[in-house]
């Protein structure tokens, strides 16, 4: 699974951190998304896809 984030789109909602904090974080200085793991294992698929689905800025893409 391959995850990409678009910091231009990100509005710092932090929803992805609540969904999968092993994959996403927020930067201290501006609260924007910080991708911790661009290739999470398949068993993290549900939470990572949920993070992408709830992102209010549609800033997260997930490819299998």
């Amino acid at each position, binding site marked *: 699974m391959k995850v990409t984030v678009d910091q231009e789109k990100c509005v710092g909602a*932090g929803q992805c*951190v609540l969904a999968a904090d092993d994959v996403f974080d927020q930067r201290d200085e501006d609260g924007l998304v910080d991708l911790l793991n661009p290739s999470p294992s398949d068993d993290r698929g549900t939470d990572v896809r949920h993070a992408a689905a709830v992102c209010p800025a549609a800033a997260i893409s997930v490819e299998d």
Partner: protein
Amino acid sequence: MSIAPERLQLPLPRPNVLELAPLYALLRREAPIAPVTTPAGDPAWLVTRFEEVRLLLGDKRFGRSHPNPDQAARISTAAVQDGPTGEYETEEADHARMRRLLTPAFSAKRMRMLSDHMGQLTEGYLDALVAEHETAGVVDLHHGLAFPLPVAMICRLLGVPEADRELFAALSERMAGTAIGEEAHQAREEFFRYMVGLIETKRPDLGEDVISDLVRAQGADSAFDYEQMVRLCVGLLFAGHETTVNRIGLGVLFLMTNREHWDRLVADPQGHVDAVVEEIMRLGAPGDLGLLRYAREDVDIAGVTIARGDALILSINAANRDVDVYSEAEAFDPDRPERTHLGFGHGAHFCIGASLARTELRVVFEALARRLPEMRLAKDVSELEVRETLTGGVSELPVTWRSA
């Protein structure tokens, strides 16, 4: 836009604080974007279907400002979400700057770090309620927990003295009032003056809090004017407690009237609390209008043409009960398979306090289920006093756990 005779008049009367007007279901199906007359008597579009509400919230062709504010449709006589706000020409840049300033202070990680503190406060409030219940037999969870916790947290985050809580809570209540006419706008002026006083008291000795950060930022940025800053501080203090107080109340009512889900939470507070909180966020419907937007250009959508400058009321309440999105949409069911909702909005204006609210709600409902498993309402839901404000909610939550 002319006012056609068949225009629906808002607000749609609702049966009680937990249910919506049945008419919303018909609108969602037959006229997802319907011409309506606002409580203030002006024309607007009411958007009720999940798909369109979500789409429009994420669409930059709609904003909170208006090209000619004097001509803009007014929504209500309250002093919040009543008409356009901000500068039409610079709205996007102003909003982006505001988000940049505030996002770090409300990040998910920081809110999580506060959860132990929230937990300690909550235990203290519950200790006091348990002691009071020993003698009184019935206690008010609104005054004992739902109100003080969010207030204490927002005071700490913003750097507002907790001793002022009765003052700003009363101002918030009046500012959101829908049945007091001009009084709501007077309250907004008073709130503004209170905030100016607070800011100037803090200025010589700025601390580590959001209002101090905003004062520093305003001093360093000529595009950020003083009045804008004060308004923003008022908005944060208003929205930062009012909303969560209401949501705790609605959550208690849902759980007390859906006993099987309360029992399930009691059986495993840690394991169930997240799902319970999300369902409270989906189904809780404070107030009865929605989020306000104005079209920045002409837009064709869902069979209607929205003209530049038209007002839209995006009904979060109706969208969150859309039968095309949720199975048994009107039922309170934390175990439902659907995990998303629009309770915190969507898009660029997504609630900045979402992580704060979620953390507070998780702490509160986990603690209630663990400590007061026998709790039940001491009054029927229909007898509870509902507030006549834009944000709705109840002003009392009488509960008991004395054996009947």
